[in-house]
């Protein structure tokens, strides 16, 4: 029995006039020339340069920020310069007058090791004078148990 023809068997594809090889060769040349692609070594070098510039920028920003954090040291130095003109007698008189306004820690903190070595608050006071002072002021030594370093 003759097999019934498929619908597609009643359709015949026509030949298309495909361009020749010369067309495709010139097309590829045209595309490549109009869209140059740098060699990968050049691209890697460009990347390295970009990253170096970015790193340099980051370091510069970090340096500027770090510089700001060192500001307090400058201010302390300015304060030290101000005190340089003040003589020891004036400092003794001020401390003596305002002794009750400060704790021992505050006094110690205010003076650096450099100045502290020049300014010895207790070198002119004898032990007897200290004992007399404690007795006259009725100071209870038990209150200062942890802070008594001179006895």
């Amino acid at each position: 029995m003759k097999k019934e023809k498929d619908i597609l068997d009643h359709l015949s594809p026509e030949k298309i006039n495909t361009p020749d090889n010369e067309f495709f060769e010139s097309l590829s040349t045209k595309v490549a020339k109009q869209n140059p692609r740098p060699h990968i070594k050049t691209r890697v070098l460009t990347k390295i340069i970009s990253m170096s510039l970015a790193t340099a920028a980051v370091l510069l920003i970090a340096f500027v920020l770090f510089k700001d954090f060192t500001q307090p040291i400058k201010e302390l130095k300015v304060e030290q310069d101000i005190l340089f003109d003040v003589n020891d007698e004036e400092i003794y008189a001020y401390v003596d007058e305002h002794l009750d306004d400060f704790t021992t820690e505050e006094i110690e903190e205010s003076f650096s090791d450099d100045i502290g070595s020049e300014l010895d608050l207790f070198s002119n006071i004898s032990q007897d004078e200290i004992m007399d002072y404690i007795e006259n002021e009725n100071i209870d030594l038990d209150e200062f148990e942890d802070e008594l370093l001179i006895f």
Partner: protein
Amino acid sequence: MKSDEIIWVNQIVSGGPDAENAFKALTLRYGPKLYNQIFRIVQNDVIAKDVLQNVFIKIWKNLPSYKKESNLYTWIYRITHNEALSTLAHENRRKHLSIDSSIIQVIPGHHGLDAFEGEQVYQFLRDAIEMLPEKQAIVFELKYFENLKYSEISKFTGTSEGALKASYHIAKEKITNFLRAKLNH
């Protein structure tokens, strides 16, 4: 992917003096098939050549992002298909599209087909192909229109001849059923 294609892709992606020669080899291998694929959609030589140029520009620029796990021809076919359909839609909106030549000829004798013009039937056929999955559409186009042997199609797609025969058979069945429904409507 074929071994020479792997070399071409790497040379094109790397750039440098070998890139242009590799791209030329790729263009010569696939260009004719891609032109025919585009012409079957736009049916105009000037527009087909414009589309083809756009396709190869996209291939040249996007090859670095091509994932080598998928078949190269399938990747290129997809770019071509999308570019051709996009251009066709644009040209149809402008209503400037003139058809150079017909793609199929109707052989008299089928009572359903005889009632329609050749261009109408071809539009039905195009609609049927558009509804196929991509791999079936590729096989159908290369077998039915290009009349390639299964061994040749296998080199293009990287699929076994047995799988290609099965795909073509299923594609033909779907298209036949679609055309019957259209012709009997």
